[in-house]
């Protein structure tokens, strides 16, 4: 009985996903700390049991998602050089993370924070600020989860599986493993994902080499871009597109430091040296991403078309299917199945980590602050688990009920929104000078400005016709300020500039009159705390998954005395 190509693909895909689901369940026992504890830190931040390699996989896994591997080739396929922005953005994230991640790690471990909203609250002495940071973080993370699921949906469409049920099944399996194992499940699966991804990238490079090399791919792409009516696409940026590219890089890099899930991955590291080593190695992922982006050009040269496209009628089709279609066309069936499994896991892992971090934001900054201040750690962990589930399925509902095209625009909006917490969360790591009220006003102004600008950005077709009237793009033309140029600037960055301006001016005024300056609850030494500090909060004090051992009086206490003596 000879299986058709399609059946082999689906078969390999299902088998691999099944294996990884089982691994996700087993993750509960993995690197288990001695003694099972029921609080938020253990479940929500897998604890300092994560050393070098695991942290790298988890960081890479949560920052380089399926959206990255599917959307970036789709962009380069569709518009060429502008789509490559993800690579320089990823590259500059690494040195910035090298400089600042250690500080947030140290202060979070010294004070027991699992979210950046808590840090903002304590740094500036304002619960309201913490609330706004948390709300912005949650609102921005949900669409980001949706776009991971968009990539997953595109994958299922290419596989020819009809209906929405495969998406819900995959999401459900991932949710159960995370529910059970907390952050350990995505961490373990990140390793599996990276193994698969290495395979995929190597195979792709081999295929390109065997097909005549990159030169042919780029030449054919250049020819195709010349034929399209839009002047903005092409192998390199147009003169007007350079500023937009630059601001897109800066704005996206800043947004990574605002999104809560990157922090969740960082906090799970063992010590400061682990973070430094890992951020130093992060650009390797950028190289893999660069290869994937160039595959978009290869797809053009190979004549791969997106699903549902009909160029004769001018229908573009679903560009998100470019990557799966490329694998389908180029790889043997079994290898394509592996590639699909890699993408699927690359979608589910960041979705899980993002859901965990959004749930932590809710539990710590809303539930514990305002609803039940005396919640026990066990209750917190439970609330967080259920919220994470709600967030994941809420994101799925958002996707299924709203047009997929729109959900990608939602992510653009989310990025522009989340960047507004940068003054509080990122600059707060360096200095407590800003005033808490100024920060709140600035944040609200930045949020409003982003919403306004993105609402008024239509999506134009290549011929200039309006395709989508609102939320159609993320770049704001400078001509709207009366400047005589065609350049555009990333809207989120413009709003952030406004945000900073308001914060600085208001801070100066309010400090001049010493009005309501909040108190900094952190201490300068907190920012240098390392693993051997006996006063460090062990964020692995918290639950990951359901307890399998009795706790309380019957608990085994196998704590090592060195290096942490305080327990």
């Amino acid at each position, binding site marked *: 009985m000879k299986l058709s190509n399609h059946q082999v693909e689906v078969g390999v895909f299902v088998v691999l996903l099944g294996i990884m689901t089982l691994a996700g369940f087993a993750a509960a026992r993995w690197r288990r700390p001695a003694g099972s504890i029921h609080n938020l830190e253990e479940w929500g931040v897998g604890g300092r049991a994560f050393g070098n390699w695991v942290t790298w996989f988890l960081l890479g896994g949560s920052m380089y998602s399926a959206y990255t591997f599917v959307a970036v080739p789709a962009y380069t396929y569709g518009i060429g*050089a502008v789509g490559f922005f993800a690579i320089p953005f990823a590259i500059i994230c690494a040195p910035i993370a090298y400089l600042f991640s250690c500080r947030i790690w140290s202060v979070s471990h010294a004070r027991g924070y699992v979210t950046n909203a808590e840090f903002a609250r304590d740094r500036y002495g304002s619960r309201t600020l913490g609330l706004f940071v948390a709300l912005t973080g949650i609102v921005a993370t949900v669409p980001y989860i949706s776009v991971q699921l968009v990539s997953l949906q595109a994958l299922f469409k290419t596989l020819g599986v009809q209906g929405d049920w495969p998406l819900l099944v995959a999401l459900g399996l991932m949710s159960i493993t995370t529910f059970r194992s907390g952050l350990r499940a995505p961490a373990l699966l990140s390793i599996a994902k990276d193994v698969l991804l290495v395979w995929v990238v190597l195979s792709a490079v081999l295929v390109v080499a065997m097909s005549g090399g990159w030169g042919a791919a780029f030449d054919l792409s250049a020819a195709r871009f010349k034929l399209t009516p839009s002047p903005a696409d092409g192998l390199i940026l147009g003169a007007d597109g350079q500023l937009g590219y630059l601001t897109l890089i800066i704005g996206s890099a800043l947004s990574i430091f605002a999104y809560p899930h990157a922090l969740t991955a960082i906090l799970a590291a063992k010590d400061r040296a682990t973070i430094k080593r890992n951020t130093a190695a992060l650009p390797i992922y950028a190289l893999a991403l660069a290869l994937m982006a160039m595959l978009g050009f290869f797809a053009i040269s190979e004549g791969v078309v997106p699903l549902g496209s009909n160029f004769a009628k001018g229908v573009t089709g679903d560009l998100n299917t470019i990557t799966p279609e490329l694998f389908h066309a180029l790889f043997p069936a079994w290898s394509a199945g592996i590639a699909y499994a890699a993408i699927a896991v690359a979608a589910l892992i960041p979705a899980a980590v993002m859901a965990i971090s959004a749930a932590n934001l809710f539990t710590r900054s809303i539930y514990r602050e305002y609803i039940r201040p005396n919640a026990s750690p066990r209750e917190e962990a439970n609330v967080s688990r259920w919220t994470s589930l709600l967030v994941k399925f809420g994101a799925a509902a958002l996707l299924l009920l709203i047009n997929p095209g729109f959900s990608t625009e939602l992510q653009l909006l989310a990025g522009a929104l989340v960047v507004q917490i940068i003054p509080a969360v990122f600059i707060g790591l360096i200095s407590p000078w800003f005033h808490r009220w100024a920060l709140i006003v600035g944040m609200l102004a930045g949020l409003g400005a982003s919403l306004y600008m993105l609402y008024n950005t239509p999506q134009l077709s290549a011929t200039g016709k309006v395709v989508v009237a609102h939320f159609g793009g993320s770049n704001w033309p400078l001509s709207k300020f009366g400047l005589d140029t065609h350049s555009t600037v990333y809207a989120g960055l413009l709003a952030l500039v406004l945000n900073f301006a308001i914060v600085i001016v208001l801070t100066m005024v309010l400090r001049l009159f010493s009005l309501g300056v909040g108190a900094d609850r952190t201490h300068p030494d907190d920012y240098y705390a390392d693993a051997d500090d006996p006063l460090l909060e062990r964020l692995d004090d918290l639950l990951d998954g359901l307890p399998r051992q009795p706790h309380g009086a019957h608990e085994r206490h196998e704590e090592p005395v060195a290096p942490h003596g305080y327990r």
Partner: protein
Amino acid sequence: MANPSYGRAFVPRPRPLEHGAPPTTRPGAYTPAQRPTGRPDARPDRRHGIVESPRRTPQRPPQRPARRVRRRDDDRRAVHWLLIIPIGMPLLVPLYNRIDPKIAGIPFFYWYQMATALVAIVVMTFLYQVTKDRD
């Protein structure tokens, strides 16, 4: 920076494991029997002092073990300015927005940005090695 508000009582963070068991104490730390009731009544220094939080953040006892402040010097070493290179290189957009010279058929625009990734790895690894020796 000496902080005058450090003369406060040490309130150990309640640990979920130890239902009724006293927390492990370090020499010099307060035991629960000595834990004062109510909040310390010193006025909070609003400008840059530490305000008592009734929550879980552990307070520092007056005679805590000396922390290695050398690390503070590590993080401020001038060598970190090297990071300007990997941060700045991708931002010089007009400089690399060209097709020639090509490597292996890949236009300059693309391989330059990939080269930046390699430069970033090298610089950060160097920094890590150089600042590591102090510990």
